[in-house]
């Protein structure tokens, strides 16, 4: 596979760009692989990449029922941050954020990581106390965050209205090294890097069953034939419940719809990400100039990839109060993604009751930021049977009562 570089662009410019090859091939599935990963989204591809890079396991296939990165990887609002309260969360999200910083170089693929800074507004006294606590916790965890005053908020975000009558801005938790990245490019970059190591990325290949002998996984049945494997990784977000059922176990997961929307493009007006968790809204400006807005999740099970209208109304109403200048913007697109929520709103990276079968799911409303760290931890777990990053995220924590209760710390926008 040819490397991308400024030199390559110059070389191709001289021959009418006829020398570019496909970023990754579309191979037919072989009869068996050492490892099969189900789900070619960010988390699945990252798992495969770190299996190869960190553990030298390259006889790997990543299969997907649709196209690569066609699920939540391409539907999120691309925010990357690690200002979590609980130690296990801070560890994995900070690892992930750190990997994002150099991911373009690692993958030789521009993922457009933009460390523009993320602020989480404190709009009630309770929220302010919560963020002051998170700031202290982050200091102990080695995550660089700072609680800033309303005046500093105004300086960073001139378009904000500090003294909204309902929810005044009392300060914010500011993480300067957080930011955004191009979501599709993360999946494409990992896929290209996986293919370069000789792995197979197989699209349009839905799993219809899981075969096991004596409690040990041996193969997956797919719409493109049976594929044998020694180890199986299930990384399918909203559809985890279905795959788990095929593998013969149950999960503490429910699927709900989470929505986002973007406005018409406007001139640059906000160069940071602002999250307002009390009112369930967050906003950033894309490189194209669109205001990218994320909203709340529905409270009931849903697989339709569209959410309820009243959530959009709530989100937009609150953001219009905080950012009066967006009141006249027209919205271009609105969409929904199916997010897999666990009982404590923290993810699952775990062994399962089926030997050789591993699961990575439950990222709920905050999976994009975790892609590199999640892949790193899942690869450790699949290769060595244990991972310091993944340890606390076992699916057995519910039974044992060891929750990682971030829902209180992170609010809904997560």
């Amino acid at each position, binding site marked *: 596979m040819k490397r991308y570089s400024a030199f390559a662009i110059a070389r191709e410019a001289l021959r009418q760009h006829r020398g570019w090859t496909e970023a990754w091939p579309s191979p037919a599935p072989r009869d068996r692989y050492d490892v099969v990963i189900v789900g070619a989204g960010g988390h699945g591809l990252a798992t495969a990449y770190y299996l190869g890079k960190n553990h030298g396991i390259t006889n790997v296939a990543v299969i997907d029922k649709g196209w690569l990165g066609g699920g939540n990887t391409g539907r999120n609002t691309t925010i990357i941050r690690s200002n979590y309260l609980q130690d296990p969360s801070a560890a994995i999200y900070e690892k992930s954020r750190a990997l994002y910083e150099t991911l373009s170089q690692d993958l030789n693929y521009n993922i457009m990581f933009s460390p523009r800074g993320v602020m989480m507004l404190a709009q009630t006294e309770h929220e302010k106390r919560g963020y002051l606590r998170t700031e202290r916790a982050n200091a102990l965890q080695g995550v660089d965050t700072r609680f800033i005053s309303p005046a500093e908020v105004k300086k960073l975000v001139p378009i904000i209205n500090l003294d909204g009558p309902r929810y005044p801005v009392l300060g914010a938790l500011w993480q300067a090294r957080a930011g955004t990245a191009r979501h599709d490019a993360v999946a494409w970059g990992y896929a290209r890097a996986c293919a370069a190591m000789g792995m197979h990325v197989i699209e349009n290949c839905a799993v219809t069953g899981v075969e096991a002998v004596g409690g040990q996984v041996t193969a997956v049945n797919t719409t493109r034939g049976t594929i044998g494997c020694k180890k199986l990784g299930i990384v399918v977000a909203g559809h985890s419940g279905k795959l788990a059922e095929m593998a013969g176990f149950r999960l*503490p*997961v*429910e*699927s709900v719809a989470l929505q986002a929307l973007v406005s018409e493009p406007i001139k640059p007006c906000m160069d940071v990400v602002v999250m307002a968790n009390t009112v369930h809204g967050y906003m950033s400006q894309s490189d194209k100039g669109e205001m990218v807005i994320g909203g709340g999740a*529905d*409270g009931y*099970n849903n*697989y339709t990839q569209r959410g309820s209208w009243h959530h959009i109304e709530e989100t937009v109403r609150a953001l219009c109060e905080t950012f009066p200048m967006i009141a006249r913007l027209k919205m271009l697109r609105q969409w929904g993604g199916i997010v897999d929520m666990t*009982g404590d709103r923290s993810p699952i990276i775990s062994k399962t009751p089926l030997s050789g079968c591993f699961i990575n799911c439950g990222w709920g409303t905050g999976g994009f930021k975790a892609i590199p760290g999640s892949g790193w931890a899942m690869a450790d777990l699949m290769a060595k049977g244990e991972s310091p990053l993944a340890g606390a995220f076992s699916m057995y924590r519910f039974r044992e009562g060891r929750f990682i209760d971030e829902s209180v710390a992170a609010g809904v926008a997560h």
Partner: protein
Amino acid sequence: MLLLTCPCCGVTAEETEFAPGGEAHLTRHGPGSDDDAFESYMFNRKNVMGVHFERWRHAYGCGKWFIAARCTVTLEVFGTYPAQTTEPPPGIVEKIKAKRPEWEGYK
């Protein structure tokens, strides 16, 4: 947007008038139950793709709990019935079978 009819007071309204309450017909396992049963009751969910039975409360109306049978893939509501039942009543099951012949029945 779901349209639900409260079987207790008969009012039909948009979902904003109601509060969702999660999977219906769970058997409670409290003190004295074993770990498997408690975990299953407390956390594990069917998360069905298709016909789903779910608790709702008429929060901005009569305040009563009831159960809605609906499809999680199309958001179609098959019907609602009072919460004082341990499984879907025959009338609702027939309605669902008429619209979803492939449905295997309540399990």
